């Protein structure tokens, strides 16, 4: 096994990890701030991919602006869903069960809406010009578009770090995760905070979908397919732990990349093994700081 191959496989794992993280980050953000388990998060990923298709392939908008607008549009749909539906079940006994059922219904509704609007044929977005080829470093071969995705992932990590730890809005978001009632007493509009956070998180999901569309097939049902892996990432990182999600995604991506290389027939098993072990021995997540572990 030569070094160049190991390096290539590591970069493969990293590129997979970045898309996983971008999607899971929204999921974990909603959970962290609002204690909402959004099973439909994958549907916003799918919506983002379709919005991206509409904007760039049908209306001819340049690729990068199209990605941002697609993300924003998915976020608007996300905020609206929170405002119209989820908000009505907050605080019920057994809220968790209601959340799962309600967001599962959203999956079915969005799948059918997408089918009505765009039809059931597979759609595709072309890669942006300038990102069609690959760069070669020694024997290592990396498509430029995968590099761009990794870069976007790092940007999102930095931006999120800055917002969450350096701005007032970020502090409010973190505070609402700790104690919603006290925060409300302090005069913060908690429902509005939740709607905004939900919008941001689903916008992240939507942007990920649009960003992944040049590499994947855009179909109804695409949301269901990625929600499981995103969920594993969230569990590894600790439910609601934004940084944990990043490390969790990298761990999962690399485990996957090397399992494929060395034990190809059992590769899909490994991500589940890692998740099960985490759930048994570190249910708070592998990367949870001590403070969160108590809560």
């Amino acid at each position, binding site marked *: 096994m030569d070094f160049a191959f190991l390096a*290539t496989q590591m970069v493969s794992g990293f590129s997979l990890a970045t898309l996983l993280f971008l999607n899971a980050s929204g999921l974990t953000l909603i959970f962290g701030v609002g204690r909402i388990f959004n099973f439909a998060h994958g549907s916003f990923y799918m919506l983002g991919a379709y919005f991206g298709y509409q904007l760039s392939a049908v209306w001819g908008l340049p690729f990068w602006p199209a990605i941002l607008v697609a993300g924003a549009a998915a976020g608007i749909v996300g905020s609206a869903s929170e405002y119209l539906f989820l908000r009505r079940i907050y605080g019920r006994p057994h809220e968790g069960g209601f959340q799962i059922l309600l967001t599962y219904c959203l999956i079915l509704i969005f799948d059918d809406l997408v089918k009505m609007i765009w039809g059931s044929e597979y759609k595709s977005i072309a890669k942006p010009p300038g990102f069609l080829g690959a760069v070669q470093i020694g024997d290592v071969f990396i498509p430029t578009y995968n590099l761009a995705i990794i870069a976007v992932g790092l940007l999102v990590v930095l931006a999120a770090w800055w917002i969450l730890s350096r701005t007032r809005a970020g502090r409010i978001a973190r505070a609402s995760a700790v104690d919603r009632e006290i925060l409300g007493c302090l005069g913060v509009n908690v429902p509005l905070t939740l709607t905004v956070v939900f919008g941001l998180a689903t916008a992240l999901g939507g942007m990920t979908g649009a960003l992944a569309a040049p590499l*994947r097939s855009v179909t109804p049902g695409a949301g269901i397919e990625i929600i499981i892996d995103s969920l594993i990432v969230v569990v590894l990182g600790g439910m609601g732990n934004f940084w944990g999600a990043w490390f969790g995604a990298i761990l999962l991506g690399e485990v996957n990349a090397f399992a494929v290389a060395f034990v190809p027939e059992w590769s899909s098993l490994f991500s589940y093994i890692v998740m099960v072990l985490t759930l048994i021995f570190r249910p708070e997540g592998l990367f949870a700081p001590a403070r969160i572990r108590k809560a």
Partner: protein
Amino acid sequence: MKSRKIALWIVLMLVVFLPSLGFAQEKVIRIGALYPMTGRSGLYGMDSVAAAEMAIDEINAKGGAAGYKLDIIFTDSKSKPAYAVRVAERYITEDKVHFLFGVVSSAVGLAVTEISRQNKVIFIGTDHAATELTLDNFQPYYFRVSNNTFQSMTAGALYLKELQKEKPWKTISYIGPDYAYGHSQLDEIQYNLKRFGVDFQLVSKYLPKLYEPDYTSFITSLIKDKPDVLVSGFWGGDTVAFIKQAKAYGLFEKMLYFHPDAGGNYEVMSALGAEMPAGLVLSARHHNNWPDTELNRRYVAEFKRRTGRYPTYAAEGAYAGIYAIARAVEKVGTPDNTEALVKALEGLQIKLPEDPEGFTSYIDPQTHQIVQVQAIGVSVPDDKFPPAKMMLGKWKVYKAEDLLPPKELIEKRLKK
């Protein structure tokens, strides 16, 4: 006042009795169809529904089959075997259907064939490809009107055998989804290569889960394996995702991509458009541009006219299934004599859009599997079927009889 009351009564009587009078007089063949309408495989379900309706309209416009009009009910199978079984049972007990029909997923097909056997109601399989249905799980009331993976993998093995003479190759890798469909293609390509005495070595095999969204790690690992030929058993959107991701890595310049069961599906070409690489060796169960016969041209054009899109391979299976039912009922004269219909379907010949000049598809009486020609092509620029920018060309055609499993294998697997 009184006359108004009487008029009301008459209207009421008409409303209540007229429809039933109509039913009593009309002779109908009732077909209960199951197709996925949601999720990823929804595309194949919708196309199958459109093509079945098209065939029914064509037949009914000419007066039906033996004086019977065809009538079909569609239900979403949700691609779930347990759910499909309940629908099939309801079709039999409540709707009193003469035929069960359809199914895209082999898992659903295997469940529904059991219901068909228990209730002695004929099940016409239009799309699912698992070979088991016409061998190991054979039952007398099941008939399949599209190729199974054994047939396409036999054609594939013959293609690779010829290729070895032109462009010597030695090693293959395999990648396909981790369920029955992906596993049987891997077994069948190896079985057939060995059967034809081809000297080859399988250097690696990858079985990612169905609907895996990211193949990056598989691609880099395949490039390291350096096979001469990559045999692929992907299905539907997975093919699209794999091709997009592998292209940037230059995988298609490093090995021959060979995908004889479903790689040449039209929806792959239409989704990829200009991104579809040239020189991939592919096939499908129906092609929009082959054979260039009057019947195929008319079928494709009529489907386009009705739906606004070109058909995927699944559509032709449904179209074939309806014609098989109509021909069998014409032979027997009634849809009510199931045993006679089974006899009529065994060996039945039907001229289909995918039949080239001089060949007519027929149902093998022993296994109830339709016997058809298979053409394998190479992706070449062709924009006659937009939004696809590449279609298959440079065809190699394999005779239907050459694609059947050998006698011993049929007998061995039928006995199981």
